[in-house]
């Protein structure tokens, strides 16, 4: 068990290192930082001085090493565009994205799983089929625009943009504690979650249909267990493995997709920052965002692996190497 945990963490660290390398390479490839930092009037001496100050005269490996060390300390340099420390920029934006993504995840799971079970039990139900299709077929940005048109402009019920009023706890801010903050969260989280609702729903349905055909479900029925118990205790539990995996993946995807939602709803999160960074080729922000999202993503997947161990006794066996999950 311990071995498995150590291994998972080691794996995650390795992947992180490679991601760091990619981020570093973006730095190296996307133009010369010196060029980007100094204006055209700068002299050659200025350039050389800056080059040395930035450590760009060192061999690439050393530079990478410095990059990693500084990244570990949360130092990703200064945003070209905002002229502020990238880390503090991201730290400021992170709560907004986090809140949005978490609410969407909860929505996706709370709505997606029961709907998925329902659709598996009643495969012919039309409403379920429609829901399972809408989310994956109508792009989130289209949904966002339509929602704004209906609920903000026509009905005036919900705010069209922003987070509403937020409560600050140190560096963390939350909109969940104020009525306007909660109202503001509704449309962005729905438009973000819709894809995932459909996705989780389809996943659960597909898994359920498969699990319901297994011998142990047949045997559970043959023992006279009531349907509800068969569906929710026996079948659903066995469906949860891929759902757990996908939830890990999903949160990462949500963070990425949040940038679409954030663009539409002017949600002051990391995604907006990133989109702007891409437009402006603000490399430190791009690199930091890439690293941070990967950290979150990899952490989640590592947690998922541990959840696996908790859920599936077969994987806990020493020496069985743990669960390499297949998507």
């Amino acid at each position, binding site marked *: 068990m311990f071995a498995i945990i150590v291994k998972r963490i080691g794996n995650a660290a390795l992947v992180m290192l490679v991601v760091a390398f990619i981020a570093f390479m973006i730095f190296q490839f996307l133009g010369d930082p010196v060029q980007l*930092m*100094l*204006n*055209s009037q*700068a002299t050659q001496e*200025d350039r050389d001085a*800056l080059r040395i*100050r*930035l450590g760009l005269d060192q061999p690439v490996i050393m530079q990478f090493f410095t990059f990693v060390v500084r990244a570990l300390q949360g130092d990703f*340099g*200064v945003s*070209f*565009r*905002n*002229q*502020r*420390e990238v880390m503090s*920029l991201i730290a*400021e*934006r992170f709560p*907004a994205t986090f809140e949005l993504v978490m609410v969407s995840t909860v929505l996706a799971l709370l709505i997606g799983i029961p709907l998925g079970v329902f659709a598996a039990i009643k495969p012919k139900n039309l409403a379920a089929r429609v829901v399972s299709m809408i989310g994956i077929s109508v792009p989130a940005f289209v949904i966002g*625009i339509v929602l*704004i*048109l209906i609920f*903000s*402009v026509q009905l*005036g019920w919900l*705010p*069209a*943009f*922003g*987070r509403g009023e937020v409560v600050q706890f140190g560096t963390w801010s939350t909109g969940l504690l104020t009525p306007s903050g909660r109202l503001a969260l509704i449309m962005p989280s729905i438009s973000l979650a819709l894809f995932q609702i459909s996705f989780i729903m389809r996943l659960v349905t597909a898994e359920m249909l498969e699990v319901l055909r297994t011998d142990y479900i047949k045997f559970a029925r043959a023992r006279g267990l009531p349907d509800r118990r068969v569906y929710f205790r026996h079948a659903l539990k066995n469906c949860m493995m891929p759902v757990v995996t996908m939830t890990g993946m999903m949160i990462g995807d949500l963070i990425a997709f949040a940038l679409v939602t954030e*663009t*539409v*709803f*002017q949600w*002051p999160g990391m995604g*907006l*920052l990133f989109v*702007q960074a891409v*437009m*402006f*080729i603000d490399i430190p922000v791009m690199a930091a965002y890439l690293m941070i999202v990967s950290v979150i993503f990899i952490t989640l997947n590592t947690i998922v692996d541990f959840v696996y161990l908790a859920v599936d006794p077969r994987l806990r066996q020493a020496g069985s190497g743990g669960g390499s999950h297949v998507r």
Partner: protein
Amino acid sequence: ENVLKWGAQRDVVSLDPYSYGDTFTIAVLNHVYEGLVRYDEKLQIAPALATSWEVVSPTVWRFHLRDGVKFHDGAPFTADDVIASLTRVSDPASPLRGNLPAYKGATKVDDHTVEINTTPNYPLLLNDLTNIVIFDKEWLVSNHAEAPTDVGKGVEGYATSHANGTGPFKVVSRKPDAETVFEVSKDWWDKPKHNIDKIIFTPIASSATRVAALLSAEIDFTNSAPLQDIPRLQASSGIKVLASNELRTVFFVFNRTDKTIASDVTDKNPMNDIKVRQAMYQSIDIDALQKKVMRGLSRNTGSMVAPAIPGYADALDSRLPYDPDAAKKLLAEAGYPNGFSFSFVCENDGYVNEEEICQAVSSMWARVGLKANLDVAPTSLQTAKFESGKFDVGILGWANEPMIDSFSILVQVVHSKVGTSGVFNWGGWNYPEVDALIDSAGKELDREKRLGFQTQALMKVKEDIAFMPLHQQPMAWAMGPNIESIVQLTDNKPRFWLTMMK
């Protein structure tokens, strides 16, 4: 409590007015920081932190500073602050250095008197000073912000995210790209002509979202109402739109060096042939552009400056007629019967409907055989291309702010790149006669004479079709029912210290 919610198209770059020569940033920060002089409601120069001034000699101006002015942190305003601020803005690393071209130095006479040394007979110092804002020296020193922020140093300046001015509002909080909150400064020296307690400034990049926010009363005001939405906004009850055209003239500039950047003509630069420039000019259907792209809100112009700018003359304003056939003929005469291709660098966040203008013009050019490789990107990316001359045709808008005088465009754009002049001479154009005229104007204290030189210079430029003026661009403000009155001047700067709420 009167809270004004302001939805802008974009955020200010920084809280430091000296960090970036950006008109909008300075306009927003003018609520917090003030200069020695300012423009009044009629765009006339009026005293601000200086109460009076006199020209002591051709090179020395003396300013008498206002008594009893306090910075937001409570520190008193003195001559040291003025000197520190002038030093800061004229630092070699300061991007605003060009806004104060004649500045040579400053000396403290006493706590409330300063002398500024300039180049001889510089006529426009006051105009320049309208936008040179004053920091508190102690605040700068104790926060190590005496020098302007230098990105190269890898540290952000304290002033980037903090502000301490003397203005009518003070900054309470700021989250870049999300929200900046201003609160009324009770200790403002001037008599407030507003009743605002708080301004919440929010950038909303998506124009649709911004309009939706205004329609659903989430914001009270926007200084950039999308032109296409104006009819809709006007039709909504309670929403007022103030639309007219501003000082800014938008025009195209040419690469005038010997080599093209991305063209199928490689042996020479076709842009150096006046026939080609005229062909390009005459193939632009400016009326269609005005009607469709600018929604009838821009003012077509043949001049490089707006009528309100001193130096303007009616004779400057005539345009060459739209005539694609003539254009084709000119091209043929110039040796390009089948046209040629070139790079056309535009931004998508600079001027009003800029991307659409460039697209539309590209298609007009295409019809006479000119193939523009349209390169559209945010300003920050394109600026680098402009500054390094990596374009064949580019777009530029010039409002002559803060000078409000045609000398501004002449010295910064038209003049060849010498010393502090010609900072925006991107394409390497060079007209020695025009340069001479500009230089004479820069040393002429007599206003009429000076403007005569300037008009003459503008005329020469026009005759050579050195640039291709399009229009004075529109400005459109929209406000919700909470706003009682607001002052809109042609410089397109919101002035909330002149705004009443209901």
